[in-house]
């Protein structure tokens, strides 16, 4: 994937933890994108080029700049800390072109958007699309205190009665089952936020018998994972053995060994880093494939999944 150079035009502190970065192209226009898309931002990470994904919060119809809103994570893997500490107005960055792993369903009769915390970000560009094309939608936004909700005032004003806010610091929460039950047939629900919120919406939809494809979610992280044990991946074409330590992923170990595999989300959500498996049992940890997909094919998502019994032979 080619990287595009951009200049940081503006850095705004929206809340004590969230900064908005406006990125302008060095020349020409930025690519068009669809609501819910993210970009990869290249981060200098111990000398190696590495990419973190951030939802685009600007309008899909705006090609002279992109905006992302980055929350500083206390347990940052380096990405949000780097952006908060080292990136200033005038800084130069490289970004990967927009990709959408959280698209709107064009056939939806009504779109129910549910955000938790910084999970509001992908909805900002989706709302632009929904409004432009005159689709029926409503937004339910859960936040911990208005001072931590960077887009609250703007959304309230823009959406009017379509906006429903829940200040969880005051104990307000949406009744998800009631909310989903009240939807028209043919509605789609979209949720982005902490794992607990996503799991609760998915569970409520299942309880009510919603079709699987009417429930959409985007995670920020892979969520809590089972312990990671080291294993060895043998590359069938060269016979090379690649050791994957407990603290590392197969994707990173392959990269370090000179076998760069294309990737996008790095949390087992998109399927880009798929590698064919010749031998060994895979400990699937993605949330991209169904059980049916996993049963029929011998593949692994290198960013997140691991070996069950200490070794794998890969078609590489």
């Amino acid at each position: 994937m080619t990287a595009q150079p951009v200049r940081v035009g503006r850095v705004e502190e929206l809340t004590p933890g969230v900064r908005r970065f406006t990125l302008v192209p060095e020349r020409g226009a930025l690519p068009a994108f669809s609501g819910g898309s993210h970009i990869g931002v290249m981060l200098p990470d111990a000398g190696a080029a590495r990419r973190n994904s951030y939802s685009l919060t600007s309008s899909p119809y705006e090609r002279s700049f992109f905006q992302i809103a980055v929350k500083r994570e206390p347990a940052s893997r380096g990405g949000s800390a780097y952006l908060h500490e080292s990136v200033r107005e005038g800084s130069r960055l490289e970004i990967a072109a927009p990709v959408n792993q959280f698209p709107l369903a064009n056939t939806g009769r009504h779109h129910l958007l549910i955000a938790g915390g910084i999970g509001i970000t992908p909805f900002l560009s989706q709302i632009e699309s929904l409004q432009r094309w005159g689709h029926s939608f409503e937004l339910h936004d859960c936040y911990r205190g208005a001072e931590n909700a960077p887009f609250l005032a703007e959304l309230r004003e823009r959406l009017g009665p379509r906006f429903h806010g829940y200040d969880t610091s005051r104990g307000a929460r949406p009744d998800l089952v009631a909310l989903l039950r009240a939807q028209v047939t043919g509605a789609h629900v979209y949720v982005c936020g902490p794992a607990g919120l996503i799991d609760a919406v998915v569970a409520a939809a299942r309880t009510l018998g919603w079709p699987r494809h009417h429930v959409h979610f985007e995670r920020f992280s892979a969520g809590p994972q089972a312990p990671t044990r080291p294993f060895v991946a043998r590359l069938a074409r060269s016979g090379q053995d690649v050791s994957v330590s407990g603290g590392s992923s197969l994707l990173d170990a392959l990269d370090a060994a000179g076998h760069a595999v294309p990737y996008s989300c790095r949390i087992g959500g998109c399927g880009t880093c798929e590698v064919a498996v010749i031998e060994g049992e895979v400990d699937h940890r993605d949330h991209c494939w169904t059980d049916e997909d996993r049963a029929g094919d011998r593949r692994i998502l290198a960013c997140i999944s691991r070996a069950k019994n200490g070794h794998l032979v890969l078609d590489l």
Partner: protein
Amino acid sequence: MNSELASAPPPPMAERFRNSAVAIARFPFPFTGDSYEYTVNLVKAGQGAPGAFDEHWFDIDEHYVAEMELRALVLEQDPDRYLSLPHMIEHQWDVLELIMEHYAADYPEHFSLTRDGDLWTWENRLLGLRDTFTFGDPRTLPREPLDYIARQAQGDWVALDVRDGDLWLDAGMLTFPADWSLKFDMGMSFEEWHGPVPMAHEAGVFKRAKQFLLRITPEEPWQRFNWTMTVGRRWDTSSETYDQWGIDRTTITPENVGEKVHLRVEVQVLPRLPRSNGLLFQIRTYLISLEELVTNPAWANRLRRVLQSLPPEIADYKGLSRYRQTVIDFLEPYEDGQP
């Protein structure tokens, strides 16, 4: 343009589609080996040498005007060769923008696009058109956006919706298909519209291909070849007109095979549509008669070997069974010196 064509007798189209030496030299010969297998065979699009059929995402050639005039005639006789479901309007604008942008950038001598915010002016000098419209407002164009632009763009254009982890054939303009029908396939999912293809379902080809297609990004379109054979220099071989061309397959003799039988190659280009998140399926068709093809003996030799090794199920599916041997016999004398 339409009214003029309607009042004039149909022009001798076959003559207008004859290939020049340049067109033959840049013909997208699809076989890289001596046998044919179903594979996904996807490569990155628009990476070809200057002047090649794949130099740009969307190729136009010496048949541009003839093809657009023939398209207008086909649409006049059967308006359903253009269809679009209501949820595809954003995809339609996506396709229009993609074609206009790429044509204007790649063929500036023929096309230009000027944008003032959402107010766009499009000029197509090959067809003598100049229109100003508001991007996103269908009332400012004489036809729906896809209908408008596909009448000015070589090849067939299908816009696929991406949803439910699948691809849906929900809009398109299809005037030159190789024995299939837009009206029949409309609204079908990826595996449904590939239903009739023999042998490939069992091999899992479509499942793998679909996973691949779903991951195409807007910045990186892919292309693949498909091929069949057509009797006569006939562009419209849709299921709807089978009664007009199906019988031609019985007319091949050793005397007329070189002139009548054509290798039909589709270069399919698949870009992700950036604003609607759909997928564009462009089918750019090229026809070359065997007489034209054998001017390159290496192609003659390779095509003969491919036809000899073709499984009967596939020869049947492609409608070649009746005249396959006649073609092989015709190609036999052309040797390229390779074993």
